[in-house]
């Protein structure tokens, strides 16, 4: 068992390292837990290159990098008591065995440790990281732009490059996923074709960057955000009317009384799944404490807190038990809210009668066009994307 003086060191981004969750985990586990928040590339760099500085890492789509760098160690499934509660999406790539599986780095393909030490989708006794929260991302927009729309114009990624909102658009600046949002927008606008947006070729990357630089020089973009509070500020101050957005930014804006619509693009969403990997250096009491924390995440309380900022949890059943029927109905089932609902900080973000944009868990998660990806040409993409941001 973990010693009393063991402080569990957890690395991650602000989207998952929430103070209410840390307190609940400390209370339930009788452990001291330290959360270290880092952002974007800095977080991944630290997680991959300094495994001695943390015990567990909450990550978005970087387990492949950590695995290559041998910064992560395999998680033994016989030490994960509630593995059976983890849902289909994490284990097969589909919800209820239905829907398109989507392009790009489908998380299940890097889930299981294969006999040769590589990662793959074939089930085994060890996993690279424990699947936790997941969701679909798209863009958010101010209802003011509805006035400029044609009748029955469907929500489309092309809106991000639409001249009607020139100068009032922001993109996510992080290269790995910002480029996917941008490519979805470019393809939907008919400006370029992509064989696989989740694994772009050198020519496709070059074309994408050319188009974006041209748009940037024409004054199309008001900004590029790297961390979520920047996206909230851009929309809150009306510097933009449309931007790539994450679910907690929508709830943060709603908490401020600002209505933002989260688009359900006809082309499909960008999907993602967060997981937790074990540092290669974790051992002894730290390893035991890490397993305790991993297991705790599947028991429900963390999933309930995450639901209140719009994130889904891999262990649906236990999460259901820790949400009110009304909350489960709104966040997971796409039903109208029976009453006002609060976010993890206790601020009202949903009003009675409202329905979640995009519908239920099963509707939204079965409409993934492409997953967050680490492409073959990821290195080239990152360099070219940074060139676009500097242009």
């Amino acid at each position: 068992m973990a010693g009393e003086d063991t402080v569990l060191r957890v690395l991650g981004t602000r989207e998952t390292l929430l103070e209410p969750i840390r307190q609940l985990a400390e209370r339930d586990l009788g452990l001291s837990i330290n959360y270290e928040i880092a952002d974007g590339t800095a977080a991944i760099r630290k997680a991959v290159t300094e495994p001695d500085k943390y015990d567990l890492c909450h990550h978005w789509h970087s387990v492949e990098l950590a695995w290559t760098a041998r910064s992560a160690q395999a998680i033994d499934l016989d030490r994960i008591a509630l593995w059976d509660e983890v849902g289909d999406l994490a284990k097969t790539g589909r919800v209820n065995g239905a829907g398109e599986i989507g392009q790009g780095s489908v998380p299940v393909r890097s889930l299981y440790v294969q006999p040769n030490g590589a990662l793959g989708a074939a089930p085994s006794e060890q996993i690279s990281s424990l699947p936790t929260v997941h969701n679909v991302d798209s863009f958010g927009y101010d209802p003011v732009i509805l006035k400029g729309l044609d009748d029955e114009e469907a929500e489309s990624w092309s809106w991000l490059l639409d001249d009607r909102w020139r100068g009032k658009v922001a993109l996510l600046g992080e290269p790995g996923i910002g480029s996917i949002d941008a490519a979805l927008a470019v393809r939907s606008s008919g400006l370029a074709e992509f064989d696989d947006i989740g694994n772009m070729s050198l020519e496709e990357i070059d074309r994408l960057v050319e188009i974006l630089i041209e748009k940037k020089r024409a004054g199309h973009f008001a900004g590029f955000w790297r961390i979520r509070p920047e996206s909230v500020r851009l929309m809150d101050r009306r510097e933009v009317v449309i931007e790539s957005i994450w679910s907690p930014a929508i709830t943060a804006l709603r908490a401020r009384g600002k209505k933002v619509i989260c688009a359900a693009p006809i082309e499909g969403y960008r999907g993602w799944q967060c997981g937790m990997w074990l540092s290669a250096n974790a051992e002894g009491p730290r390893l035991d404490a890490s397993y305790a924390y991993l297991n705790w995440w599947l028991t429900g309380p963390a999933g309930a807190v995450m639901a209140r900022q719009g994130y889904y949890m891999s262990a649906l059943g236990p999460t259901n038990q820790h949400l009110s029927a009304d909350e489960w109905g709104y966040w997971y089932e796409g039903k109208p809210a029976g009453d006002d609902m609060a976010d993890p900080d206790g601020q009202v973000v949903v009003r009675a009668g409202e329905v979640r944009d995009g519908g239920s868990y099963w509707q939204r998660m079965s409409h993934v066009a492409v997953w967050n990806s680490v492409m073959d040409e990821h290195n080239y993409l990152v360099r070219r994307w940074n060139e676009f941001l500097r242009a």
Partner: protein
Amino acid sequence: MTLSRSPSWITHGRPQLGGGSGSRAPRLYQVARSVLRYHIEERRLPPGLILLEGRIADAFAMSRAPVRRALALLCDEDLIHRYDGRGYLVGPASPDVVPRNGDLRDFGLALPKPVAQSIGSFTWERIYAEVETQVVSCIPFGTYRVLESGICEHFRVSRTVAREVLNRLRDRALIEKDRHSHWIAGPLTSRALTEHFEMRRLLEPAALMSVAERLDRKMLIGMRDRLAEAEAGGGVVTPSLIDSFEEDLHVTCLLKAKNQRLVTTIIQNQLPFVTNSLFRRYISAESGGSLLPEHRIIFEHLIMGAPRAAAAGMVAHLEAAQSRTKARLKVLSLIPEPEPTLYLERVH
């Protein structure tokens, strides 16, 4: 032409500034170090005298890189010590030392005449390893133009010498001319790696079969035993040991092929080693992992006199190495770009 020397990223492992050799003459940093040491030990340079990289480079009429290395080594020897981030002071660190300025030439610091003359007649070999290391280190980070004039300025060499260096880089397929006749290096992409590995799968098994009969049995047993020993030790090996395993198989054995065109083409397609060297340098000193048994099985077949089976083992090894190397290239995206130099200009 024949490329007799194996590429520096194999023989020297991690690329380092000024790393590698290629010349039998003393290296510049060694010259700078021994001249400085002589002047310090003879107390011609007084304790407390400020030593700045740029001024010494001027006094010696050489570039800064060898001077930097010489100073770092003298500091390790405790003959000089760090001063306030500005350079070094002569003598070991002590509270009594008073920093003093002065023109080094006033203290008689100069290179002995024969050395100065030999530097004047610089040959391409002296600087080649450093330029190659720099080029190889930057290509994962984008497309770079290699400037002839920059090489002249940085190393204080003539255009003839700079051109000789560029020709050697071209022979190794590290640079090529674009349509404006500029020398271009990089980018090292996943596609380039795939193409190099496709070539290697065509060339290296064939080369191995062609040399199999001529390989010394004792040498092969020695190479096999070193691998077996590393495996028995748990497979965790140092980067330089991995480099030596790579060299045993892909250089020492293969380059014995009589067909020089084959040898040249093999060398030109061993660029993937760059990725692994940079990965070890920036990300993680890896363990040997599956490389050890992959290599060992090839040697087992060679020792048994089964060259076809050895060639099949080589194909399997190169397939596995391809996926490892491509995965490592992705991880290099986390590394900030290197500082620019006078002779490497970023294109994009």
